[in-house]
């Protein structure tokens, strides 16, 4: 009689243990950023001192990361949405190939992509030393996520017929694109946007090679802080990063939830 209950308790305990294994370091790290002396432990008291220190020393990296993430979003929207639209409309072999090729920048190690960029454009000094260089890397890396996310939505609706319907009512291409195509892939665009911003904010691999001392981003600064400063400072830095990224992740989860559709039975009469 008691066996299912025992099993349930065991499963619950296991799940909680796994969760704890994953979450405890996060909490410890955040706490470390707020502790006066990490070695001495929490008894040394709590402080916001490290947060302010990070703010003073690394403020520019935070703004730069936000700036690059937003610029990256703009570029991926301008490039990605039309690309997804074209791919959704051309369902042939070439389209599928391009779709597959688009994933390459994700599959390739970020370091390799970064090295390729440096080898190709490193000689252009103005470009190499600007944050635009990092932006290019980020766009390469995040564009597939935007395209895939929009494409998935476009493929789930009968885009061709919807457009034909709009055309039969007199809508030209531009009207159709803005009235029908864009609103109907809103979910995909939103999901893709959050993905792009989140990935760009947290991107380290590629940025590590692409940055210059004057174009550090938040994750690069974070690595710096852990490598050269007190552990408390690095942890405070992590805390700031969390506060920026967690709301984004939560928003992404909300958007990813499937839409619930109400079903109305066919009663044969409309009234």
């Amino acid at each position, binding site marked *: 009689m008691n066996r299912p209950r025992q099993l349930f308790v065991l499963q619950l305990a296991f799940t909680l243990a796994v969760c704890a294994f994953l979450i405890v370091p996060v909490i410890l790290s955040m706490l470390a950023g707020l502790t006066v002396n990490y070695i001495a432990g929490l008894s040394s008291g709590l402080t916001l001192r490290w947060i302010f220190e990070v703010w003073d020393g690394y403020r520019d990296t935070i703004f730069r990361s936000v700036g690059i993430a937003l610029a990256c979003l703009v570029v991926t929207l301008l490039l990605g949405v039309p690309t997804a639209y074209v791919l959704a409309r051309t369902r042939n072999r070439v389209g599928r190939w391009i779709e597959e090729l688009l994933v390459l920048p994700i599959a390739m190690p970020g370091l390799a992509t970064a090295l390729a960029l440096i080898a190709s454009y490193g000689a252009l000094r103005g470009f190499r030393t600007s944050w635009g260089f990092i932006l290019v890397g980020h766009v390469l890396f995040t564009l597939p996520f935007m395209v895939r996310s929009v494409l998935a939505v476009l493929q789930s609706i009968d885009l061709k*017929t*919807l457009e034909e319907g709009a055309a*039969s009512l007199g809508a030209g291409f531009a*009207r159709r694109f803005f009235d029908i195509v864009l609103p109907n892939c809103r979910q995909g665009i939103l999901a893709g946007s959050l993905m792009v911003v989140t990935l760009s904010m947290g991107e380290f691999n590629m940025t590590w090679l692409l940055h210059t001392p004057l174009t550090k981003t938040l994750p690069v600064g974070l690595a710096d802080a852990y490598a050269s400063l007190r552990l408390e400072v690095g942890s405070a830095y992590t805390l700031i990063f969390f506060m920026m990224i967690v709301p984004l992740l939560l928003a992404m989860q909300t958007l990813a939830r499937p839409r619930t559709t109400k079903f109305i039975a066919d009663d044969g009469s*409309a009234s």
Partner: protein
Amino acid sequence: MTTPLSIHLQACAKTFADGTRVLEPLDVQIRAGETLVLLGPSGCGKTTTLRLIAGLEQPDAGGKVLFDGVDVTQQSIEARNVGMVFQSYALFPNMSVAENIGYGLRIRKLPAAAQRERVAEMLEMMRIAPLADRSIDQLSGGQRQRVALARALAVRPRALLLDEPLTALDAQLRDTLRVEINQLLRRLAITTIYVTHDQAEAMALGDRIIVMSHGRVAQMGTPHEIYHQPANRYVAGFIGTMNRVQGEYRDGGVFTCPAGRLRWPGAQAAGAGELLFRPEDVSIVGEGEPADLVGTVTASLYLGDRTRLIIDLGQAQPLTMDCLARSAPAVGQSVRLQVDPQGLLALAA
């Protein structure tokens, strides 16, 4: 509505990019205000014909589409001002019912008040006023169908093009909507091209029907002509039920077969052949009366108002006929049949 439009297709053929010829050169004159039904199995070219008229496809070189005598072949669908209803309805999920219906008016930049008025008029006409603010995914199939019609008609199109509009609905709803669409089309007197694979729909709605097969016109005519004077065996078999009897033409207007002999008034050289007739032209006669054919009942299907009999005539294809349920013979019983000579058809393949 504006004055009805006449549509003329001149030598319209269609070959797809992969080389498949889906439509042989087609010449059709569609009269102003009539309802023309394109009928045929899938792949017969009926939807392609509709899309040529709509402007969603271009005919092969040499083909022309004329609206009231004006060549519109090069015009895109946006410029042709035709109302279209798709099998999947193609309603915009990002808009409410009222916004869907008003979309064409918005494109035409009608004043807001005129738009509202026209949308209200359409909602009223299709009896969906209470649904105005619903979103599309809150509608049933029948309701979607009404919204699609309202949206297509709101812009006062020159012609109404319907691509299998009832196929996605269940049988009972299909019957109801068929009657409604029929009344609507009569009232509006708008030139309508209606594509369907359902012969009952075609018979009920069409002023004229074009029966299509493999990209060609098999027959064009009124429902009455199509049913009673099918041009060939394909049309005869596609529309309604048709009986076939194999036998031999003899001199003196007689056709003999293993099951008996039929009086054949038409001219026909002597020799082997086939005669066709509808189930309703067959009747059962008593022992004393002269019979044309004699057969054995192999199945009896009770349909409520009547009973359908399947009768073995000693040939591959059995004979089908209907009789009153209370006078239906039992399975296995031998029956004597008379065939109305006026219903007899001798057709080319």
